[in-house]
């Protein structure tokens, strides 16, 4: 069963996932851009996999190309689930 999608839950998932990719935890915020965090397309592919595994929400290439900030990613997942 996929977990229930709430903005808080998704934010927690994302914030916990990013440090695994080598992101400095103290720099993570909703407004931080993936560019600033040195999160690239391969990291986003991994993040998408974690999201899909947890919430059953698929993020594909076009979606991922549009998101610029941590907040964008969280909002996209929440909107897709809705």
């Amino acid at each position: 069963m996929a977990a229930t999608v709430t903005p808080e839950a998704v934010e927690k998932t994302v914030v916990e996932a990013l440090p695994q990719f080598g992101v400095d935890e103290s720099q993570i915020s909703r407004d931080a851009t993936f560019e600033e965090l040195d999160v690239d397309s391969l990291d986003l592919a991994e993040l998408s996999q974690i999201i899909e595994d947890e919430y059953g929400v698929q993020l594909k290439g076009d979606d991922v190309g549009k998101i610029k900030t941590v907040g964008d990613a969280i909002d996209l997942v929440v909107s897709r689930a809705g």
Partner: protein
Amino acid sequence: MNREIVITGVGAVTPLGVGARTLYERWRAGESGIADGVGAATDFEPTEHLTVKQVRRADRFSQFAMVASDEALEEAGWKDEIPYDVDRVATLIGTGIGGIGTLEANHKLMLEKGPKAVSPLSIPLLMGNAASAAVSMRHGLRGQSFATLSACAAAAHAIGTAARMIQTGDADAVVTGGSEAALTPLATAAFAALDALSDTGVSRPFDAQRDGFVMGEGAAVLVLEEGDRARERGANILATLAGYGASSDAFHLTAPEKDGGGAVEAMQNALKDAGYGPQDVVYVNAHGTSTPLNDRAETIAIKKVLGDGVPVSSLKSAIGHLLGAAGAVEAVATILAMRDRVAPPTLNYEHPDEGLDLDYVPNEARTLDINGKKAVALSNAFGFGGHNAVLCLEVA
């Protein structure tokens, strides 16, 4: 070789530790990096050298190559600035298998959790060219880069091909070598199934009781430059790659020809390329795997090409068989040994085998008394598939 190719920096990660000098000095002292029948690079802690992100983005075999390349480039004086147009600096790192650890881990994930659990990083980490890509990116080297893949001859092929790139004018300098990280359950089981591994877990090349090779892991990287260009920039020249010879047995997938076959051809080609005769060679760094077949065939090949007077030893006695990294690790150790005019030892050599009667430098290093001659050495590498690649290294 029509243009002189010199080596200005070397680096290594091996079962004897991190660092080329560590490798050579410990081998010369008769120390072994083999424990419990395996030559693991236990001193290598990736995060001491690489960021979390770099570690995640590289299979262990690429990590080894990156760290060895840092050492080689630093020694060459390339650390702060590459002294060439980076578009003309090539990267060529050989491997026998590539990122098999990544492959196995993701295959397991797929079987246990389904295809969606497979990491998007799987392919970029496991591909055989990943180490070359990682080294090229790490140092911003924008000349051509790819991997050579010829089992246990891969690194020697890489180094020889690198020299040719400079000679033909395709590159001004090349960062080259080999890397392997195959101490995995599948690779170990597969070599064991071939009956290639030592049951006793002891690497004893040329000894009558040798019973197969001991697996090892690691990497070595060398910086190759054209001689005049290197001297112009005031580089410290460690050695000259005087010649390179390669051949194929065209005989059997795993066994060498009993009469030395293609190995003879490769050694002769390397000497001819260097413009040297058998009498010039003062030391042979043997492929010396500790398998019954290799050590006998290689002994026959060496005798055919050089006679029976030259000291011959095997680094694999101290670190095991580093497969696609072996040719580079052994070339690096040979260079440092020739600079000291030393023949490092074949460890664990106790029982002479019938017909294997070369001077294998048993158990203790020996000073080479070469009366002011150049130290000219051959470093042999032979691979499954019948691939033979030999480097002729010279230290003035």
